[in-house]
């Protein structure tokens, strides 16, 4: 059984500030407006597992592989639907909420795209 599966319902007005730096900030659609503004907003579903090194994330039909997980990343995801993907292939999470990922092609995230975490 996968960890998470949902679809993108909104791209916040300022999400591009992060996307341009290879950072995808997710918040669930229950998050306050000021956080949705900087986020890729997904339809909030139940999280049914833990993200670990080696977990694969399919985002907008591109496959990412998790290379590092910060100590508060899973807690934030379960509690808030909040996930921060850093597309930098780093094997050390620089910040406690980071989930670092390697990738072949950078995902171009749009509304109605899907995110699957396995």
């Amino acid at each position, binding site marked *: 059984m996968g960890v998470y599966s949902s679809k993108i319902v909104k791209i916040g007005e300022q999400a591009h500030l992060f996307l*341009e730096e290879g950072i995808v900030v997710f*918040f669930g659609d229950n998050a306050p407006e000021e956080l949705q503004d900087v986020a890729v907003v997904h339809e909030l579903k139940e999280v049914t597992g833990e993200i670990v090194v080696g977990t694969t994330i399919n985002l907008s039909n591109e496959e990412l592989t998790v290379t590092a997980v*910060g100590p508060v*990343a899973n807690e*934030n995801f379960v509690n808030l639907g909040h996930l921060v993907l850093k597309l930098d292939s780093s094997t050390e999470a620089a*910040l*406690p909420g980071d989930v670092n990922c390697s990738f072949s092609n950078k995902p171009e995230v749009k509304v109605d795209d899907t995110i699957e975490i396995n």
Partner: protein
Amino acid sequence: MAEYKKVKIERGPGGWGGPLEVKPTDEKKYVVCITGGGIHPVAQKIADMTGAEPFDGFKSSPEGGFKAMACAVIDCGGTARIGVYPMKGVPTIDIHDTSPAGPLAQFIREENFVSGVGEDQITEI
């Protein structure tokens, strides 16, 4: 008119920024907690000591929006919330050990942000 008291909030052993002094007013009377899972003990303690009202900012927004926030308590992992509330002019308290990073780092200063905060870092002045 409610009576409000001032508290000092210092950085924890691994934290950054501050100290912040928070004193609510009738206009800024909410300690807004954006951590998920209800009111965090740090937010509750600030509210109890100052006479402010704790408010779960993940469930709804307080009347008056950012202007009504005496401070925001977050459990940010370092990228997003760390910058959003300072950018909106709200003194921000992170319970995790973080320092300015990410695209919004320019908004995060020692005067509006303190991290690594636990209940021990809050004192009455």
